[in-house]
């Protein structure tokens, strides 16, 4: 990866930032799976993807954009607090990037999946920590949410991050996979 900011990094950070905002302001950023909140958010995934594809700075900026937009657009008091809505989001892309590079040499797929998992869990963990520190929720409740919300969200994040990044990196070029409708009938 090139060092410093290239035109590509700037542009990709911008468009992924736009996707993050869009996922936040439409209901598409939520997937109806069993969590305490009734759905899992995927709004942090652009930050993870940005971190994996273009490095920590890009991941950080997308996280910032996501944080600010969720702060401005918040409908629950918890996220009208910049320390909860913005600060934790800066780290999503960074931890995703770190887990990606540390595992990349072992296995590309595992590295991408791990980035998805760690990025999502960073979001859950830091937001809840800040929420407890700022006095919005009690520590006991936070632990429950971390488990009931954090784990499904991390799974969703792994699936989507893998699907998007693998398609972008065109990793599946080898024709060893068969379509569902292939095979004898």
């Amino acid at each position, binding site marked *: 990866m090139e060092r410093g900011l290239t035109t590509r990094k700037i542009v990709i950070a911008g468009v992924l930032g736009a996707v993050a905002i869009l996922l936040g302001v439409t209901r598409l950023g939520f997937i109806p799976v069993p969590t305490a909140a009734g759905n899992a958010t995927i709004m942090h995934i652009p930050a993870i993807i940005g971190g994996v594809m273009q490095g920590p700075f890009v991941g950080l900026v997308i996280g910032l954009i996501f944080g600010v937009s969720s702060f401005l657009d918040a409908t629950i008091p918890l996220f009208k607090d910049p320390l909860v809505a913005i600060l934790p989001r800066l780290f999503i892309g960074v931890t995703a990037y770190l887990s990606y590079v540390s595992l990349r040499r072992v296995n590309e797929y595992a590295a991408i999946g791990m980035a998805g998992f760690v990025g999502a869990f960073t979001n859950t963990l830091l937001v809840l920590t800040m929420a407890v520190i700022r006095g919005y929720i009690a520590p006991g409740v936070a632990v429950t949410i971390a488990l009931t919300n954090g784990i499904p969200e991390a799974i969703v994040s792994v699936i989507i991050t893998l699907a998007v990044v693998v398609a972008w990196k*065109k990793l*599946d*070029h080898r*024709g060893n*996979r*068969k*379509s*569902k*409708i292939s095979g004898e009938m």
Partner: protein
Amino acid sequence: MSDNPILEVKNLQHIYMEKTPLEHQALTGVSLRVYDGECIAIIGHTGSGKSTLIQHFNGLMRPQRGEVIVDGHHLSDPKLDIKGLRRKVGLVFQNPEDQIFEKLIGDDIAYGPLKMGLPLKEVRDRVEWAMELVGLSFNELKDRVTYALSGGQKRKVALAGVLALKPKILVLDEPTAGLDPRSRQELLDNIVQLNKKENMTVIFVSHNMEEVAYLAERIYVLADGRNLIEGTPRDIFGNNETLAKHHIGAPQTVEILTKLKEQGYDVNLKSYEIEAATKEIVSVLQSYRR
């Protein structure tokens, strides 16, 4: 051709963002009738309401005022089987290649039929049928990755994905926009084949008058959210006053014939097809030689 239209629109109106400062009336009163097995072109300038109109055909939009009746079903009926309607009316959007999301071509085309809950064997047959119809080899391509395809091939995959629903009516929004000449011709031939051999009713939106002349049996001209005129290509392209009055472009054949007529040659302006126009031009050349 039966007496009852397969698709009928009566005085359809649509207002976007009603009762807000951004209110905008896209359809002010459209009426049209399409009969089984026809090939219909809808033409009109950008903003004339074509896209809004065709989204009513498969229930993506419901009539605010006026009526849309597809194969006997009223779209205003709240109990309408919307999934059934969408299988009956296949809608292909502009740049449909953007909607491909599966890794493998076969999987992407099979998405619709699988969602219908058909048995795997039936899905496979439908995918094969759809792929061969658009000229993609089922055996060679079904296990290939989608992102290795060219733009023209991707569009064929997307078209096959809609065809696999086996719709009775196929609606296409600017089907050839942005394609290279060869892919464009192949796609046009596919559409002709669907219409003539598979007896599918085809409705398409286009800005390209060559294409309209080549495909359409009847044309509806839309402007400012209403239909101005309708008729066969011969009626519409052959009438200079109509063309000028409504600012409709014409195929190049018609433009050549018009220029010849202006210079005093006796040509028939209704000969818009390439063969017919060639005959007219040849006859002019022959009279000149004499």
